[in-house]
């Protein structure tokens, strides 16, 4: 087990180097000049431009710039934002709890609804429930996310007035950041209604963000279950006189979990990487929105540093998924 873990961690090294190269070059390939963008509509004198040009080190060869970035990364320094002048690292971890909170709620919704839905659909294969569920999953998967978000906002915030339109909490409440997670902080603050407000702000973005993972998980669970339900050991379980919930929910589901865990892992990776559209639409101050804004500003250090951190997170999630395989199916543990 330990050897496996070390082996896996070693494979991180080439991936990591690859990611630094990609994240470094990605933003530089885009047209646009960060200094011009910073200057805004007023523009700036040529002298000032040249000064900044040198200050940011753009006059040096790309390879040297990359080497600076890379050695910085190895020392835990991701650089400083051109715009806010704050270290990228600090900015990332100030915003990350918001993204994590939202992704966590979304993935919880997707898993708690998606897996049972997939199981029920597989068990009732070809019947009404199965068809209805799989058609809705297809619709959920193919629906443009921004359109779906706007639709929900119009109905639930606009017409019904049940939920707020954007943000993380009502402006009425103010309390210091303790953990960065609004749900926990609002509880800690002890202010009346703060927690409820935080929850109400979370509902719509979570639903929107959960839609695609939910559809993917439900479909994957269904197909994995269908495959497993045809296996001999399911017949054995039924021949023991076990109840259908036990046969399907214990004997079949555990075997069907491997592909499901894979798509859950991929979804978690995607969610953490920043739900760009969802965060933008709901003005959710998370990683996705931060990255998009930084790309518009051509804030090189933020984009390359942010990409790198997100990639690292995805790698860690993948590693956890691989370790989970072994827990679920002992046959995989051996290899």
């Amino acid at each position, binding site marked *: 087990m330990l050897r496996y873990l070390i082996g896996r961690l070693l494979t991180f090294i080439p991936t990591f180097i690859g990611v630094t190269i990609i994240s470094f070059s990605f933003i530089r390939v885009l047209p646009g000049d960060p200094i011009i963008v910073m200057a805004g509509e007023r523009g700036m004198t040529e002298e000032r431009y040249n000064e900044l040009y040198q200050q940011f080190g753009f006059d040096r060869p790309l390879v040297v710039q990359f080497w600076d970035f890379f050695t910085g990364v190895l020392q835990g320094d991701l650089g400083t934002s051109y715009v806010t002048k704050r270290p990228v690292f600090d900015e990332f971890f100030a915003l990350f709890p918001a993204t994590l909170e939202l992704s966590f709620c979304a993935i919880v919704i997707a898993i708690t609804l998606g897996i049972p839905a997939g199981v029920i659909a597989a068990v009732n294969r070809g019947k009404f429930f199965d068809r209805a569920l799989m058609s809705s999953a297809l619709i959920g998967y193919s629906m443009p996310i921004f359109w779906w978000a706007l639709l929900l906002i119009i109905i639930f915030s606009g017409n019904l007035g049940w939920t707020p339109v954007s943000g993380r909490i009502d402006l009425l409440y103010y309390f210091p950041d303790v953990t960065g997670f609004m749900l926990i902080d609002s509880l800690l603050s002890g202010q009346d209604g703060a927690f409820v407000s935080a929850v109400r702000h979370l509902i719509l973005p979570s639903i929107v963000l959960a839609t695609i993972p939910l559809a993917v998980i439900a479909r994957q669970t269904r197909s994995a279950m269908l495959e497993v339900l045809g296996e001999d050991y399911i*017949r054995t379980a039924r021949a023991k006189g076990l109840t259908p919930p036990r046969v399907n929910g214990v004997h079949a589901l555990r075997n069907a979990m491997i592909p499901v865990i894979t798509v859950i892992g991929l979804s978690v990776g995607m969610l953490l990487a920043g739900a760009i559209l969802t965060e933008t639409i709901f003005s959710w101050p998370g990683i996705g929105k931060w990255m998009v804004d930084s790309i518009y500003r051509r804030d090189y250090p933020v984009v390359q540093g942010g990409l790198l951190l997100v990639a690292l997170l995805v790698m860690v999630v993948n590693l956890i998924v691989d370790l989970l395989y072994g827990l679920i199916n002992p046959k995989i543990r051996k290899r």
Partner: protein
Amino acid sequence: MTLLNIRNLSVDFDTAGGQFRAVDGVDITVNEGDILSIVGESGSGKSVSMLAMMGLLPWTATITADEMSFDGVDLRGMTAKSRRKVIGRDMSMIFQEPMSSLNPCFTVGFQIKESLRIHMKMDRAARHRRAVELLDLVGIPDPEKRLKAFPHQMSGGMSQRVMIAMALACKPRLLIADEPTTALDVTIQAQILDLLTDLQKETGMGLILITHDMGVVAETAQRVQVQYAGQKVEEQEVRKLFAEPHHPYTSALLAALPERATERHLPTIPGVVPGQYDRPEGCLFSPRCRFANDTCRKTDPPVQPPELGLARCHYPVNAKEGVA
């Protein structure tokens, strides 16, 4: 005492190409302490009739029978819930592929103890004791350790022993073994068969042994029932069947045993069991039968009296003068 009594059991499957009759008017009787063997080629409806009785067929199957009772209880129209109290407890089944019949995600111990918990309501310690006892009973060395093993850590023969232990967990009155040795090495086959017959003798349960191997039949069974294309074509006591088969199909099966072959080439039965689309008129065996004539090809054969092994044939073989 009659343990299992099935009269005129038929099973139809809804398929894309219409109805397919997999079992066609089969009678099965098993008394306590009986070893009944059901023989036939692949596709002759042996397993399907047993699965029908256990309620393990998919919903595409339609089961009809004049009588289907186990231990005096009518199995027809039984709710799924009350059937679950019988199967796995009084009536249990082991299958052809032991390696794939055990769930790869759970330990052997978990899978054995599961039935004990559900049917016998034993507590943790009692379940553990019984599981150890069962593994010991089926000849697995070091049972304590084996309970923690996962199926992939065991050989095919071991797995089949575990399956047997699982089936015997609740002391069933009837054990159905569906080709229990087909997937195993020849040496292991004999061990498993010996184990099954020993256990049957010890416990006095009824045993139904489904097989396509006449050698297995000769070694283990008391009574044999031959099935062909979903029909029972003959039933006899094992020694009599080997001595005087009455249905041409039985006789052809026996002739195909290597130890009985008299020629250089092993005799075979030409053709295959008819499927959904090529069911012949009249006797189902007629296209492959050496003795078939126009009567066989046009009219359904009658069932002969017990002296002629209940053979479903117009012209039973080995018939003494005046009987047929």
